[in-house]
């Protein structure tokens, strides 16, 4: 199994405050990883660094077998193998069709192929009926499904999900979870998911990475983390206790 992400002594600071300090992290491909931790622990910062949206201040980052130099040609080449869905699932002005086709258009794909791929993705996400709808009038759940279809249209090797179901109802969240599992199992896409939802993490994750105060304090299979956490801070988080400095 190829390792898709290798982080070595990665540090990110905002001013004098260190928000992320990762000694070592290696993520093999094809699995579902869940990054968990309290608010402000650095989960989204870690995700954004791995998604190449945020530059680390120190350390070495290796993505999809390449040491990241942050040169724009390399960034484009690597980013075109990954995609992301965030909590807000920002939609461009225009139809659902325009949004789902965007990633294919920037790759200058043939318009017939774009049409076929968009159809396929909308069908997979159960969003075919919304093809011509204004993307900004979708409900929370529909918006997330459209965003997932858009992210998957480019056939990424890695899909980053930052709290993708935190603003939607349980039924929509269940549909999205099902979709995420299908993507992972059928296409082998690596999923890196940030979530606060313990049940969702347990349902989806092959592996859980627990972050506290910018550091990885525990990593393991979902069962081991949830049933037998070794760190007191993980235990406190899982029990819903306030995790204080």
């Amino acid at each position, binding site marked *: 199994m190829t390792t898709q992400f290798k982080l070595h002594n990665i540090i990110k600071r905002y001013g004098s405050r260190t928000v992320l300090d990762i000694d070592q992290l290696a993520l093999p491909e094809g699995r579902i990883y869940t990054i968990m931790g309290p608010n402000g622990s650095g989960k989204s910062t870690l995700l954004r660094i791995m*998604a190449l*949206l945020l530059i680390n201040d120190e350390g070495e980052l290796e993505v999809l077998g390449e040491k990241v130099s942050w040169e*724009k040609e390399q960034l*484009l080449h690597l*980013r*075109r193998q*990954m*995609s*992301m869905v*965030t909590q*807000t699932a*920002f939609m*461009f*002005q*225009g*139809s659902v069709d325009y949004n789902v086709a*965007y*990633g294919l258009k*920037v*790759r200058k794909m043939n318009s017939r192929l774009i049409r076929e791929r968009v159809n396929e993705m909308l069908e997979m996400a159960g969003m075919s009926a919304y093809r011509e709808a*204004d993307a*900004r*009038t979708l409900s929370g759940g529909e918006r997330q499904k459209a965003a997932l279809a*858009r*992210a998957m249209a*480019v056939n990424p090797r890695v899909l*980053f999900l930052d709290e993708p179901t935190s603003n939607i109802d349980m039924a929509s969240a269940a549909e999205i979870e099902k979709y995420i599992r299908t993507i992972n199992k059928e296409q082998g896409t690596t999923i890196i998911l940030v979530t606060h939802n313990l049940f969702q993490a347990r349902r989806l994750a092959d592996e859980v990475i627990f972050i506290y105060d910018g550091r990885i304090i525990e990593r393991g299979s979902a069962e081991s983390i949830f049933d037998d956490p070794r760190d007191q801070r993980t235990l406190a988080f899982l029990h819903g206790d306030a995790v204080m400095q």
Partner: protein
Amino acid sequence: MNIFVEGIKEGVYLIWQMDPEIIQITLLSLQVSLTALVLSAVFGIPAGAALALKRIPGKRIYLNIIYTLMGLPPVLAGLLVYLLLTYRGPLGQFELLFTPSAMVFAQVLLAAPIVCGLTARAVMALPQDVYDTAATLGASRRQAAAAIMREARIGIVAALTTAFGRVIAEVGAVMLVGGNIRWSTRVLTMSIVLETRMGNFSTAIAIGLILLTLSFIINLLILKLEKRTLRYDNTIQIT
């Protein structure tokens, strides 16, 4: 009240008559203002986008300067252009003073900061999500910048309509550098001033009416263009 009615009647009559001088003045107004608008857009939109998106040292100072220039008094703009183009000025050799080109020059000085400043504002008002979404979907920097400009287009159209309003209604600067020469540099606003000074109030109102109609049509076209690119009604619905 009668004078307004007379003015409107005369305006309709002037348009109906296709008075050659009025047509020439109207076409020149249109030519000068639209050329100034196009040039302001060519310089102002990329400059505004760069100001909003690039990491430029002293960005706030530049923005402050642009915002200040958005309120540049037309007479001062006219004076600056006059001094540049006058026979002894640095650009005097081109003999542009009292030509439509000088008028365009002055109007660009007035309109470009508006286009630049409002474009910068429209882009800066967008969330980081626009770039992040484009980038994570595989857009190059240029493609992501295009996506950002597309998202900001309502603001950019607002910048263009504001700038057009500024140039079409402007009289101080064009009078200084154009000279109000009949059949050469006289535009609608100058004619209003001239007719008012001569006591021909109804003719002045009539020309004003033509000016407003022209402005209405141009803005309609700009909004049509916006509507074509914006299929969906983005207005806030208040019930």
